[in-house]
Structure formats: structure tokens, C-alpha cells
């Protein structure tokens, strides 16, 4: 109990950083992922190739290596990024790769007739996308996007290796100061679990609401 009391303020700060990393990277990852998905589905070959290469690289290499490359590797070229921005960048780039595949699957799953109907009433590519295709695609991509969000929340713990003081780093620090590693890592494990439980409940209710709307 004493340990918990001492660790609590630090845990609070760590949680804030963890949530910030996860939410920011998810937001940026969604926007970039959608752009990648559209490139992948575009009729312009260079755009397609670029998107395929991007996904291949960012899905095919470990996230930890990506983080280390950005934080320790880039300074060799004179590009120095602070720990938290480094972590956000790495997490976003990685999430974009995965999310683009989720969005692509959603877009492809929308019936061909939907775009035709949109075009037949005179909609442009972007109008059809915004009003007809994406609302349906997002619904279909929702379960896999939610899974990715939860995975991303856990991946934020990798930021601890580049000195970002998020939940995992807090546990490590307090653990090493008190030699109570077991308790500290159990505590942060529970905190991660609670965050993700809230997220999956949110996802479930969102999916239910969207299913009802049809």
C-alpha cells in the first residue's frame, strides 16, 4: 500500500504519456493510413507502388527497430528528434501501415454499385468517397481498426527504451528504486488492461450503434 501511494503520482503521469502516445499515433495513423489506402487503390501506378512498398517496410520490420532507428539512427544524419516526438513518429508511421490495410479492406468491401450510383447522380470521385464509400467502408473496417488501436496502446510501452517516461518506464524506475519489480509491473499490467478494457467496450458500443443505423 505504501508502495502504491508512493508510485501513484508517477503512475498518473506515466498513464497520461501513454494515452497521449496512443491517441496521437492513432489519429495520425488513421489519416495517413487512409491516404495510403487510397493510393493503393488508385489507378496511378506510381502511387500504388509507393503504398505497397510503404506497407511492406513498416509491417515487415519490428516496431522496436523502427523506434531505435528514428531516435538513435537519425542523429547520424544530423536529424535529432526529442524522445516523445520520436515515439509518436514511429508509432504513427507503423500504425499507418497497418491501418491502411484495414481501410483498404473496408473500401474494397463496399459494393461496386455504390460508386456507380454515386457517379450516376453526378458525384465526383471525392464526393462519392466522402458521402457514399467511406461511411460504409469505415463501418466494415471498424472491428479490425479497433483491434489495431488496442495493439497500438500496448505498443506504446516500446517508447520506454528511448527514455520516454510512460507507464512501463515508470514501473521500471520505481521497481529499480525499491526492488519491488513484481508489484510494479503487476500494477502497470493492470493499468494497461483497464485502459484496453475501456477501449474495447467503447468499440463494442460503437459497432452496435453503427449496425443499428442501417
Amino acid at each position, binding site marked *: 500500500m505504501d508502495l502504491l501511494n508512493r508510485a501513484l503520482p508517477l503512475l498518473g503521469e506515466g498513464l497520461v504519456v501513454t494515452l497521449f502516445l496512443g491517441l496521437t499515433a492513432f489519429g495520425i495513423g488513421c489519416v495517413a493510413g487512409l491516404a495510403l489506402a487510397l493510393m493503393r487503390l488508385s489507378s496511378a501506378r506510381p502511387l500504388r507502388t509507393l503504398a505497397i512498398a510503404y506497407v511492406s517496410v513498416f509491417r515487415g520490420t519490428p516496431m522496436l527497430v523502427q523506434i531505435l532507428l528514428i531516435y538513435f539512427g537519425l542523429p547520424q544524419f544530423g536529424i535529432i528528434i526529442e524522445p516523445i516526438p520520436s515515439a509518436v513518429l514511429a508509432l504513427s508511421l507503423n500504425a499507418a501501415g497497418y491501418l491502411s490495410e484495414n481501410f483498404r479492406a473496408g473500401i474494397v468491401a463496399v*459494393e461496386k*454499385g*455504390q460508386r*456507380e*450510383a*454515386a*457517379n*450516376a*447522380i*453526378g*458525384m*465526383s470521385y471525392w*464526393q462519392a468517397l466522402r*458521402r*457514399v464509400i467511406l*461511411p*460504409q467502408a469505415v*463501418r466494415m473496417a471498424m472491428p479490425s481498426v479497433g483491434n489495431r488501436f488496442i495493439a497500438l496502446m500496448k505498443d506504446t510501452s516500446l517508447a520506454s527504451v528511448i527514455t520516454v517516461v510512460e507507464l512501463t518506464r515508470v514501473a521500471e524506475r520505481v521497481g529499480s528504486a525499491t526492488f519491488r519489480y513484481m508489484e510494479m509491473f503487476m500494477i502497470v499490467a493492470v493499468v494497461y488492461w483497464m485502459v484496453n478494457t475501456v477501449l474495447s467496450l467503447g468499440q463494442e458500443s460503437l459497432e452496435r450503434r453503427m449496425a443499428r*443505423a*442501417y
Partner: protein
Amino acid sequence: MAAPEQERVASAAPRDDCQIRVEGVRKRFGKLEVLKDISLTVRRGEVVVIMGPSGSGKTTLIRCMNFLEEPDEGRVSVCGLEVQCGNEHRGRNRARRIRDIRLRAGMVFQQFNLFPHMTALGNVIEGPMTVRGMSRSQAVTLGERLLARVGLSDKRDEYPSRLSGGQKQRVAIARSLAMEPEVVLFDEPTSALDPELHEEVLQAMRELAREGMTMVVVTHEVRFAREVADRVLFMDGGVILEEAPPREFFSRPKHPRARAFLRLVEHAPAEASEGLTVVPSAVGAAVPLLPPSAGGLA
């Protein structure tokens, strides 16, 4: 946004009698030549029915009229807006022109293609609001009037998943009319419907024809063609084999293949109407309540 659009449109379209002109259109899918040098014209206020066995190219032809299908060769002009087909003519201006054509030529699909995430009213007002930039209140007034016209005022707030096939297709008709088109293209509008639902859709189409709308209709509905069409085109193998007023076409078809086709459509159960080859899987849906109507597959 709406006003300048319409002004430009009005000045670009000369007021002649011809609404649709298709000249020398060819289209191939891979090795298969689906349209072989097709030419036809549709005059203002005319109802033209296109018939023919499946695979004859009739659906491709009607889809070439609003460029959902891009012809490989030839020229298509709708309401005075002419588009040259073929790769060498692609460009930005052309895309604009095709959108302008689509604003004048509405389309009703075999599979309805209603937007499932919008209510019946939402489907109807989507085009006027997004494409024409109409205000919501104006669009709603227009949408309610159109839903009333197809007899669906009470379904205004229902999502398509809660509508029957016939109701869906009537919403789709209202949706295409909401763009105030000069021509409506119907691509087998009753073929995906159970036989007892054909009549409500055909009724809406008859009324539209009575009001003087220019219509091109791909269908197997012989009775509809007899009553409403000004001309029937019979297609097979990517060419127009025969073209005649319905009375003449149905009583004295000249081409042997037209005769064979009509025998199947008029006297056989609906599964045979889809083509000269019998499709066994369609037998279940083959009880035509309305005698000459033809169910069947795409």
C-alpha cells in the same frame, strides 16, 4: 452554386429534338466484342425499349450512355453534350463533360444501389445537396414531393434494409428524378424483383413516360414495351438487329432471332426469357403473375 451550374448547362445544350445520339460505338471486354459499331438516336420525349437475350450487349449499351462504361470507339452525345470515346481523347475537360451528361441522364439500376446508410429521403436528397449544392430545407421539400410521387411518403425515414425490393426501386427512381434529369436510363429495373413487385415499379415508369420524360429502358417486360414504348430495339451479339414500333415488333418480328427470342419471352416460363439458353437455377423464380413479364437473372 446551383444557379451558375444550371446557366452554363442551359447555354451548352442546344434545343434540338435529339436527346441521345450514339454513333459507331464499339466496346470490348478482353477478347469479347460486346458492342459492334452501334448507332442510334433517341428523340426528346421518346420511350425506347431495348430487348435482347443476355449477353447481347444491351446493358453495356445503356451504361455507355452515361459513361459508367467507357466505349472504346465512337461518339456519344446526350442533350447536346458530345463526348469522343477512346483513350486519345481523355482529359480534364472530358471528365467534366461526362459529369454534366450524368446530371442530365439519370439512371435506375437493376440492383437498385440505394445508399444503405441513408434513409429513403436521405437517398433522394443526397444528389441535390452534395452535387447541386441545394439547401437542406429545399432538398427536403423536393425529396418529399418525389417520394409522394412514387407513393412512398410513409417510408420517408426508413433505411433501405427495411424496404421491399419494389419500394427500393421506387426510391431509386425518385433519387434519379431528384437531379431533374432530361433523360432517365433504366437498366433492367424489374429483373431483380419478385414477380408480384414488378407492377408497382412499372406503374411509376408509366407515369413518368406519360409526363413526357425521355426514357431508355432495357427490359424483358413485353407488356410494358407494348403499352409504353415508342420504339423497340432488338439486340443480339452486340448489334441492333431490329428496330420497330412495338405493335409491329411484337406482331411481326422480321429477324429470325427476334422471333425465337419473343417465343421464349412471351410463352415460356420466365427462366427462358433471359436468353436462348435455359438457366436451370432460375426455375424457382419463374412464376409470372403478370403474364408477359419476365423475371430471371441478369
